[in-house]
């Protein structure tokens, strides 16, 4: 099993959600996060003074899936979250040792 983590632009969340749901992905976890990458931050001006805002608001999407679904989900995510401009974010995939469904106690692929 794998954990797919994607950092995306907040306004792309609805597109990402619809694309994944249409493709049969049954669950995801979303967190509002802040950070910076190559895009860097931006500046805001208050009373003529510029402030550097380093941490830009982003959304973190987490999906646990069986190994066989990884490529397809990453492709869907990439397509749905891409605006083509700097700051579109990143996706990374990590190994998951075990998954347990709390209500039933099922584990492994059955629990996804």
């Amino acid at each position, binding site marked *: 099993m794998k954990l797919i983590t994607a950092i995306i632009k907040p306004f792309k969340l609805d597109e990402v959600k619809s694309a994944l749901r249409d493709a049969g992905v049954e669950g995801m976890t979303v967190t509002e996060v802040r950070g910076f990458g190559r895009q860097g931050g931006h500046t*805001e*001006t*208050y*009373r*003529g*003074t*510029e*402030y*550097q*805002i380093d941490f830009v608001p982003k959304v973190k999407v987490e999906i646990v899936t069986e190994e066989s679904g990884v490529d397809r989900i990453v492709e869907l995510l990439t397509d749905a979250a891409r605006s083509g401009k700097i700051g579109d974010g990143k996706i990374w995939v990590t190994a998951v040792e075990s998954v347990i469904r709390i209500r039933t106690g099922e584990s492994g692929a059955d629990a996804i």
Partner: protein
Amino acid sequence: MDSGDVAWVLVSAALVLFMTPGLAFFYGGMDRTRNVLNMLMMNFYCVLVIPILWVLVGYTLSSGTNDFIGNLDGFMLKGIGAGDGGTLATIAYLGMFAAITPALISGAVADRMTFKAWAIFVPVWSLLVYVPVFKWVFGGWLGQRGSLDFAGGTAIHVNAGIAALAAVMVLGKRRGWPHEGHPPHSMPLVMIGTGILWFGWFGFNAGSAGFANGQAAQAFMNTFLAAAAAGAAWVFVEWKRDGHPTNLGAASGIVAGLVAITPAAGYVSGAGPIWIGLIAGVVCCYAVRLKTRFGFDDALDVVGVHFVGGLVGSLLIGFFANPAFFDDESFIAHGFMKGIFYGGSPRLLAEQALANGSAIVWSFALTFGIMIVLKKTIGVRVDAETEYTGLDLALHSETAYHGGAA
């Protein structure tokens, strides 16, 4: 005062009271999430202690016929009863001014002053600085010489504004300032505060006529126009200069215009208030940048908006005071001089300069002294850890915004 006058002064008093929460939101929104409650509390504290101080001794010490200070004849409102509704209404009305004046200073000392020091500073400053300056300007030696201050440009805004400068000079800079910037945590809160201030300011200025009359109506109109003109001026300057029209620019301009028209509200008419607003908007928009050049950490620009705006408005009376509107004879019968643009001599301008100069010297020196005494005795700064973690939790044991799962 007839019943209409009493009604208007009572309504105005309530309007002015509402300005203190308005100011709290205006400042609080500009402050950081971890210090916003401390900012609100510094403001609300003023309406906890000043009303009591005002009826005990403040009012009586600032009234009467003496040049420099009143007397204690009216201690605890002695001798003033329901038979004299006009006087009671006026004392309550002026008490609201006494409460908001020290509150203005809170914006400068934001993020680093101990609440204990603030708790002592507010009543002491009111008695040693506000009361005498108020007395000099309204009925004391400065007023008798012919200087004009309709609703407190000199007595309130210049006075509190220069006190803010003296206070931050003793208090010192916030850690990290000016390299670390701290943008406003909630612009919507700033805009709500600005709206409340503007609303309340109609009571502040139009109520200062003391009667429900034509002068009150003119002051109302002037308050309306000057705030709009100054807000527009600030927004267009920064739009051209920095590339964007900002909410904070609009809010700051509105407040600068309200401050500037305060001393002039009952003495100018026609296009006068628009010019005063435009000039104040442009001047204050540049004045708020001086703090970084001169290195005084006036956190929320009390000096750039209240001191500079008040001074600009007060000096412009020397040009714009218009006896025609108030019918020439009564204006002169009251001993009021004309502005330069209406056929007057530069004498009025000179008196305005003297009045503000006197208020500035007294307020700066006394405020500096009060702050030094506080610093040497109980201390005025929070410790480094409190400054980093925030004053809300450390000093008030409260948190403004509980994020995430409650």
